[in-house]
């Protein structure tokens, strides 16, 4: 039994075999700089009123695609054909993300575009990132669940370190669901202590000045169609910050 790699690379995988992912097939398919004045796409949330106020610092905000997947249709959820968010409500976010370019490319590569997409919005200030927003757009037919977020900064060439020694992991207090036909946003900011399940505080900014290979990983569990069975699958959406 073969199935398509759930992380949206379009690679075929087999049970008992690992998926061969081309290291140059980066899931980042759209990068757009937007003016930070007047807010950014990463601050909107239609699934929750806990969007918070973690504003971005700096002049430019970059939004990148961290990957996408196609959650399976499962009993108990809508079984209507998957609709892909375009312009119009709640497509405000998509206007920023350049979805048409992405979908066109995804359609060519995989026949069917991912329905659950994860985007990262961040502002770079003198080689440091103080605030991040992770937007999950679920246009699929079943929900996803946040497992955790991990921030890693590997001093080149070795040792992981978010603070000193290990990656930082953010595990939510309660279940964070990404419901079908909804857009949800999570915020990670520097020293912004909060008990809001959509806001996470990191002890210091992420260093992307060149001596670190920093990355953000969002782990989400979705129901995935493996061809013969539908099973839950934890999927990592990863973005490696570019370094000079």
């Amino acid at each position, binding site marked *: 039994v073969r199935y398509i790699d759930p992380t949206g690379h379009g690679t075929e995988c087999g049970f008992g075999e690992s*998926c061969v992912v081309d290291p140059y097939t980066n899931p980042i398919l759209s990068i757009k700089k937007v003016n930070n004045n007047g807010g950014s796409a990463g601050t909107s949330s239609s699934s929750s009123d806990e969007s918070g106020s973690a504003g971005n610092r700096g002049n430019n905000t970059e939004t990148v695609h961290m990957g996408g997947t196609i959650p399976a249709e499962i009993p108990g959820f809508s079984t209507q054909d998957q609709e892909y968010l375009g312009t119009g409500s709640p497509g405000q976010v998509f206007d920023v993300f350049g979805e048409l370019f992405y979908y066109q490319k995804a359609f060519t590569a995989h026949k069917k575009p991912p329905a659950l997409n994860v985007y990262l919005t961040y502002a770079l200030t003198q080689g440091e990132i103080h605030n991040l927003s992770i937007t999950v757009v679920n246009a699929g037919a079943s929900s996803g669940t946040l*497992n955790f977020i991990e921030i890693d900064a590997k001093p080149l060439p070795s040792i992981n370190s978010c603070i000193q020694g290990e990656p*930082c*992991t953010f595990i*939510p*207090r309660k*279940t964070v669901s990404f419901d079908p036909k909804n857009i949800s946003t999570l915020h990670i900011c520097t020293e912004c202590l909060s008990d809001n399940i959509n806001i996470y505080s*990191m002890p210091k900014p992420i260093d992307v000045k060149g001596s670190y290979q920093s990355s953000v990983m969002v782990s989400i569990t979705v129901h995935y169609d493996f061809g013969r069975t539908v099973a839950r*699958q*934890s999927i990592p959406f990863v973005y490696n910050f570019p370094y000079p």
Partner: protein
Amino acid sequence: MKKSLYLILFFFVTLLSCTGLDSNKEEEFSRFYDSCEMNTLIKLSFEKRKSDNDGRFDVYIDNLSIQEFVFSYSSDLEIWYFDNSIWSTVSNNIKNLGSDELYIDGNGFRAIPINPSTNKNITIRIVVTGNYYENGLQENQCFGAFADYSITP
């Protein structure tokens, strides 16, 4: 002929002693959690991260009750290792900056990252214990689950 008999006898003695060790092993382990109801309403399963060679993996905790379950990530999630007839704990290298108190909805699940501080080719035992909430109040009865995970470097 006599030599063969000795060999067979040696084989059975070894087998019996191993069985004895295993039963002691489980008996001893159950004493650590004798006040907890294990593997009934809480179930554990594992998922290795495909792209991770650092030994990190995720444990799925399924709550089979309709009530909300709560546990502490730092103190209620334990990693055990059995060696030389002794159970020892292994620390978890995950630096969790999120919440330490983790809730699982009724009939819900959570996938939690684990990074045991051992890179040996061994089998570890993951244990999660906690309490249920009923009518907004935390019950005293302890519930939990354990399952074995083989670390393959």
